């Protein structure tokens, strides 16, 4: 699903965010990326999402060489991805329904289809009753679940999450992780950047550890 070959990323400031990174994530996997801040977790996700481009090396996502994805094909490429952020990034002037509908609206689905899927998605995260509320009226945990609903409403092949549980208490974090696990079980490849090592270990999933832009270890799940 994701393959990095000798990938370098150097910013204009001269900082090397990634150095000769080699990585392989197979389709249908659920993988955690950990490491200290500044280790390159976010950069890794940004390169996969084509928000930035690598300086050198090759990245293949979903059988597409990202170097060849340009112009409007970037938009089409991103329609196969779902995103989750630590700060949720919801639009505060839109209802929960409209926020969740966003990925389907930009892709041009019909209203009937959008309504059906948004409701299914909100139901999945247990917020169907709040569809007409505005994000600022929700608690942090609820906002995060709206973010999750938005990330999966268009049935992406790959879900990218950057510190999705950063601001949540352990119980809520665990709930969110279980939701991610459920999506993974129906076939979505999930990539989560997180520094909550304790929780990650409990989930027994592959862990990629970055240090100063390089791959430190790749731990396979411990058999129970």
């Amino acid at each position, binding site marked *: 699903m994701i393959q990095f070959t000798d990938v370098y990323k150097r910013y204009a400031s001269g900082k090397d965010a990634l150095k000769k990174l080699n990585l392989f994530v197979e*389709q*249908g996997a659920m993988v955690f990326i950990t490491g200290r801040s500044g280790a390159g977790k976010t950069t890794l996700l940004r390169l996969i*999402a*084509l*928000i*930035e*481009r690598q300086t050198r090396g090759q990245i293949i996502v*979903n059988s*597409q060489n990202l170097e060849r994805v340009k112009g*409007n*094909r*970037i*938009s*089409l*490429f*991103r*329609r*196969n*991805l779902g*995103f989750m952020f630590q700060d949720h*990034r919801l*639009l505060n002037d839109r209802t929960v329904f409209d926020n969740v509908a*966003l*990925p389907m*609206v*930009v*892709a*041009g*689905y*019909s209203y009937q*289809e959008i309504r059906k899927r948004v409701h299914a998605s909100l139901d999945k995260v247990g917020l169907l009753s709040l569809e007409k509320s505005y994000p600022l009226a929700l608690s942090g945990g609820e906002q995060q679940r709206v973010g999750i609903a*938005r990330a999966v409403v*268009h*049935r992406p*092949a790959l879900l990218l999450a950057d510190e999705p549980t950063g601001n949540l208490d352990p119980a809520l974090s665990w709930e969110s992780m279980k939701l991610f696990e459920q999506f993974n079980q*129906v*076939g*979505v*490849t999930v990539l989560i950047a997180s520094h909550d090592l304790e929780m990650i270990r409990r989930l027994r999933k592959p862990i990629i550890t970055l240090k100063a832009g390089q791959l430190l270890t790749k731990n396979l799940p411990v058999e129970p």
Partner: protein
Amino acid sequence: MNVKRKPGTGPNNSLGRKFQVWIAQHARAMLVSTGQLSKNPIGNIFSIAVIGITLALPAGLHLIINNATQILENWEGNVQVAIYLKPHVDEAQARQLSQNLQADSVIENITLITKEQALNEYKTLSGFAEALEALEENPLPNVLIIRPNINSLSSVAGSELIHRLSNMEEVESAQLDHQWVNRLIAILDILKRGVIILTTLFSIAVLLIVGNTMRLSIFNKRTEIEIDKLFGATNSFIQRPFLYTGLIYGAGGSLVAWCLLLLLTFIIQDPVNQLSILYGSDFAINGLNAKEVFALFGIGSGLGLLGSWIAVGRHLSATEPT
């Protein structure tokens, strides 16, 4: 959940479906655009008013020059021909010639100004009376002033008449006496160039106004644009509502400009009519005709569209991955 879907396959696969999606996307963009406009009515009305005034200035000048040209063209059709007779032609011969010419259907009436009349007039008007006394002989020729019949006189017939008169043996030269009209027309031609320059400058001003307004509105919506793009919105999807807003600004500005011009015509109508009556003319001021109104709206809307297209394009190219 079908995760093996090929990248980029949205809901649109058949051509008919694509067209449906395209229509729906435009309808949505229009809704978003009008929704945004109604959220800040005062600010948007101000912007549209500024655009309207900016468009009204060159359009108003165009209107004034158009009317002035029309007045002059009317005058031009009302010209006189001055026939300067040769010095040896005396007053009796001149009278005879005048009577002969009166029969010509192209000629409305003829006035003879004898050399003595001309000299006396010149003496009183020029102030050189004493100097002229010193002359032994009157140097001025007899002159026939012909007023052509406007109804039967086309421009070709006019020059034909001049030609015919010039070739008569008693005639020294024949001149269309409308040099001042020609001069005014030349001045108006210069002013018309001025209108073109003004129109260009004010068009740039409209572009800047729309562009800057759009820049602010893009800045206010930058989070939304970022998230839309992250979830796969194409540039056209982002651009469309802004383009509609630009179009509405431009068309609204044109409407304001048109109303201002109607007001201008209304205000100066009465004084112009009174002036016309004093000159014995039936001239009435003309507003913009249908074609000009169409052009005003075309230019206004086009500028609005272009201004927002440039502003959004600049922003979007800055969001491409590097």
